[in-house]
């Protein structure tokens, strides 16, 4: 409770939560407000917003209702963000935990692999993965997750390094707790908060990565993602700029919301900075 109060005391964080709630509301009401296929032909292409009462955000270059795509796209972007982040965080935690807890050879091997992933520009790897495995939505989500884990692993590892010699862990060890219990029962819950906060960064980047893929025409065309809308609107950017500007703003606000919430969590979790 105290935590929630601390969190909400921060106006930026509250705004972030509000924005996120708005995006969630878009996603939740998409089916109600726009029951038809958002990718279906709705009318003449490239109608300006408000020009036609039926399409208050206008239609895109393929004659699809932009408003419908924004609502349905919220689902896709959130799914991409959440699932890719979950994958990245899971890989990151396992690698980081093993590496930080055991040290030595395990650490060396896992860190070499992490290093390899970090040396390789992540967008490049993403391109290769999409080129190899295709651009179906699930593939893209997994690919984004797979290129995003190294920072989470490093963060987890650093937390584990600092926590593994803390007295409460040593106490657990003297009680006879096994490695798995120590890792997942004792250390991980304490290592988690900064990683969870960092998840907001991964999520923001995941949404941006998908839009960059769509920009290069490599995203899944069968889902109404905001990235696809931007990518498609790219060809009419000069005259019908609204086609890419509207989803651009949607992405901006979502990423903003996620970042603000992440920052708010961070501040609320770090009482020392609470008043900053």
């Amino acid at each position, binding site marked *: 409770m105290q935590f929630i109060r601390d969190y909400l005391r921060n106006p930026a964080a509250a705004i972030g939560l509000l924005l996120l709630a708005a995006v969630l509301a878009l996603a939740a009401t998409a089916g109600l407000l726009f029951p038809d296929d958002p990718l279906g032909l709705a009318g003449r292409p490239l109608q300006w917003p408000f020009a036609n009462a039926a399409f208050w955000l206008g239609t895109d270059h393929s004659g699809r209702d932009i408003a419908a795509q924004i609502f349905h796209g919220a689902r896709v972007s959130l799914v991409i963000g959440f699932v890719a982040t979950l994958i990245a965080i899971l890989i990151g935690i396992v690698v980081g935990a093993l590496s930080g807890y055991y040290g030595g050879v395990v650490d060396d091997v896992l860190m070499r692999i992490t290093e390899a992933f970090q040396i390789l520009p992540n967008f490049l790897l993403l391109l*290769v993965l999409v080129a190899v495995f295709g651009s179906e939505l699930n593939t893209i989500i997994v690919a984004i997750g797979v290129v995003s884990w190294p920072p989470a692993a490093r963060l987890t590892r650093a937390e584990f390094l600092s926590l593994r010699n803390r007295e409460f862990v040593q106490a657990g060890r003297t009680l006879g707790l096994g490695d798995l219990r120590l890792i997942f029962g004792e250390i991980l819950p304490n290592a988690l908060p900064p990683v969870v906060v960092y998840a907001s960064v991964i999520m923001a980047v995941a949404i941006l990565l998908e839009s960059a893929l769509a920009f290069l025409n490599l995203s899944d065309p069968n889902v109404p993602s905001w990235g696809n809308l931007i990518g498609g609107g790219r060809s009419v950017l000069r005259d019908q700029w609204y086609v890419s500007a509207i989803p651009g703003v949607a992405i*901006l606000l979502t990423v903003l919301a996620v970042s603000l919430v992440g920052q708010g969590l961070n501040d609320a979790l770090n009482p020392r*900075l609470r008043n900053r």
Partner: protein
Amino acid sequence: MRLLTLAGRRLLAALPALLIILAGLFLLLQLAPGDTVDALVAQVGGGDPTMIEELRRHYALDQSTSARLADYLWRLVHLDLGHSAIYGKPVIDVIVERLPATLLLMGSALSFAFAAGMVLGILAARRVNRWPDTLISTLGLVFYATPSFWFGLMGMFFFAVYLGWLPAGGFGTIGGGLQGWALFVDTLRHLVLPTLTLALIFLAIYLRIMRASMLEVSTLDFVRTARAKGLAEGAVVVRHVLRNALLPMVTLIGLQAGTMLGGSVVVESVFALPGLGRLAYESVMQRDLNTLLGVVFVSALLVIFINFVVDLLYAKLDPRISGEH
């Protein structure tokens, strides 16, 4: 000499990672649908079976994967990056042609992001929770959340097409025969928009880190000591907070180097810059394995080098580190 030994060690330590990357990518791309001949035929708009078979033989695509991987690694040991299928010349030559643009772009974007991020971060931290902080922090978040290709295209239309202040793309006026100062100014003008575009997200990150780091350091004991000494606020910040606050920023440079190269794929494509990022993208699309692996190899070296410089810089900034050497 000591420096060389250190650099050598750093490289040696990075070798396993390098090997993982190269072999991993090689095998990964074997799984890709379509090969370099498909891409080539796609580019020329089709062809007939004889010609295609001839080309597959030419690019050694009829040999086994393991044989080609072994061959590649063996050549790599001799520092031979092979022949580029797209460009029909040695990969190393292609990369050397592309390197300057990428180095310039990354250098300028990094410097700009670092400098502006630092200044804005300081300003925000000094006015924490007041309107300049709110403004700067919000701006930072907006920068962070803006898709860079979108910003780049919009910037190009606004500054190049509507206002006509800056060139729309490219890496310099072609055939201008410019030299000296004029060449410098010309290159600078071409770099402004791409630099801004690439730097945007990093600027936001640096800003955030600098602000947090300033606030963090401000709470440390020695800052209180400095105040107890009777130093003016400015002196406290400049002489005591700043340098300490810079340490995480410097670390970040090394961590972000790889990401920045990735970001340059999009930026180079928007602004028609002849850099490594676009080369990498093209070699993926054209299934030009040698070129892709060459680019990855060189950019990995670049990242390793940057990290090495960051280490040196860090040691220079923090006597506690150099003390251990």
